């Protein structure tokens, strides 16, 4: 669908919104809950690398540690409050259209989450 300018988009196509608009219903969900459709959210995080392949792809609707960890990493990467909760800024950000490439490839990322913690061998020094 190519349009020379925005005014040439037919009204019939306007207002489709985000393919991830359904995520709105998860606003306020938190660890320990079980909510219908939460597995779809896990699929989203799996697709973009926030849940590793080792976790399989048959996700449950449980708001478990796996999901909380994925949310925290996502929030870190996108400079959101790292609460691990599905707050409004996080949900709204997840619904934005985006590049299909994963943020985390094979478990590694040099986005903010990959730079947050120093490697274990780092020795903290103080200038003297």
């Amino acid at each position, binding site marked *: 669908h190519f349009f*020379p300018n*925005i005014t040439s988009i037919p009204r019939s196509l306007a207002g*489709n919104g985000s393919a*991830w608009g359904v995520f709105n219903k998860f606003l306020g969900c938190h660890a320990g809950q079980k909510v219908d459709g939460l597995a779809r959210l896990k699929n989203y995080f799996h697709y973009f690398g926030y849940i590793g392949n080792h976790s399989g792809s048959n996700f449950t609707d449980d708001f478990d540690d796996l999901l909380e960890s994925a949310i925290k990493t996502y929030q870190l990467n996108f400079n959101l409050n790292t609460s691990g909760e599905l707050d409004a800024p996080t949900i709204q950000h997840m619904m934005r*259209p985006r*590049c*299909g*490439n994963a943020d985390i490839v094979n478990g590694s990322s*040099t986005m903010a989450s990959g730079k947050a913690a120093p490697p274990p061998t780092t020795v903290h020094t103080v200038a003297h």
Partner: protein
Amino acid sequence: YSFFPGQPRWPAGTSELTYAFLPGNQLTATVKSVFTRAFERWSEVIPITFTQTEVYRSADIKIGFYTGDHGDGEAFDGSMGTLAHAFSPPSGHLHMDGDEDWVLDGNFLNAPASILSAVDMESVAVHEIGHLLGLGHSSVEDSIMYPTLGSATRKVELAQDDIQGIQVLYGSNPSFNGTTSVLTPGQGNDTSGAYS
């Protein structure tokens, strides 16, 4: 900025890369010119030029519009959602989601508020070319390589973060003086997009 694991890049000494469009898409010259502009934004800062070729099979970079499952294991999801994806060097594959409402002129001033599905094609093209060259996603919101793009939003000018990242891989274009030029059709970044 970030790189793909292993920091893949086009081979050292590469000074020119060719690109071609999937013949089956039958893209117009106007659509192709959007990509030409997007390539120019990167060639301005690194010592690599991009040349269009009609020979799709032998082109270094292959650009195509696809819908749904198109055989690479990364199915598109219809309007909005994922907009495009591209593979790390030296794969050269850039896939755009054919279900999006792609806007060519990059002008979203006075856009009707009801148009939630409009996507600026050049903004996405510049981002995906970054992947083709070896850049991963960035957490810097102003950067081209930030993963999300609001609808009816234009972001086409490389940020310092993008320039630093790509120059780690390829060095600087000797002609680059530290600032990028504004390319026609003229509008720079418009991240205040009404719907972003």
